[in-house]
């Protein structure tokens, strides 16, 4: 997928990776790669500004967590983050269904 196209959906993808539970930035990127079968392969650093922006918007909260002697910043969805991902998922599902039907009719 073209990088610019992916960036347009990065908020939804990052929020989606956090629906299962809190993750640190590195794990968010690994999860994105794994769940997409390495289809989403952005420069890793682009995820951190997104995490910070989503936190500032109130969709995520974060805290330092010590794991195996290492301190990591762990992010988790807030209540409004859960509502946001629910809404974005519904919009995306409707959009992709419509696109599939149009493209399917052409091919």
């Amino acid at each position, binding site marked *: 997928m073209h990088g610019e196209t992916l960036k347009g959906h990065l908020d939804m993808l990052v929020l989606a990776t956090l629906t299962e539970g809190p993750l640190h930035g*590195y794990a968010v990127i690994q999860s994105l790669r794994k769940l997409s079968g390495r289809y989403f392969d952005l420069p890793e650093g682009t995820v951190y500004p997104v995490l*910070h922006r989503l936190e500032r918007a109130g969709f995520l909260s974060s805290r330092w967590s010590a794991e195996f002697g290492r301190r990591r910043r762990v992010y988790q969805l807030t209540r409004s983050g859960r509502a946001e991902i629910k809404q974005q998922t519904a919009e995306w599902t409707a959009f992709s269904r419509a696109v599939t039907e149009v493209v399917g009719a052409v091919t």
Partner: protein
Amino acid sequence: MSEPRSINEYCRKLAARLPAGTIRGARVVREVRNHLEEQARSLSSGGTLTLADEQEAIRQFGSVDEIAASFAAQTPLEPENEPVVRKMLVLLVSASSLFAAALLFFTLLGGHDDASWWTLTKTALGVFVLAEGGLASALLWSDRLRGDMPRLLVFLAALALIAVGSATGVWSAHLGLVTGDWDGYAGAGAVLLVLQGAATAWLARPNLPAKSTDSA
């Protein structure tokens, strides 16, 4: 700009590109360092990290220019003194709200010896100070005021509070000079209102376009 050759160098360059002395800037650098070290370890075949592992981790992460520009464009880092101003604003709002509540109490429930316009002025002042304190509190504790329009409303209300505080100060100074009766409460209240207005206006200041950091 030549790309950093080690994680230490990368973090040093990134720190230099983020706004100096910001709490979130320091946090970003620590998160990035953790990420790079973790990625370099996962790339390392042996137990010890090599410079090649660090360089590959840096390559996969993205250039300092890209990351700094992305932060500047998406989520500008707030200055370090913002948390201090927030705490100060809590104290100022508490004090001014008490001041306004006392003013309203004595104006509305006390004797009505004053002229009606003066009673009306004091009542309006008390209500306005309480309302502005409410807006400032909402700015501090609610994410709903993060949008541009609500912030602008709070910003304008804060400017109005500065004007009201200044007018109160000038009026009490004028009375003091003319009558020799210096009203310390009015003077203190005026200073309080100006400080609260300034702190609120600073926190609610409109987002200015970030300076371009793209050196390409």
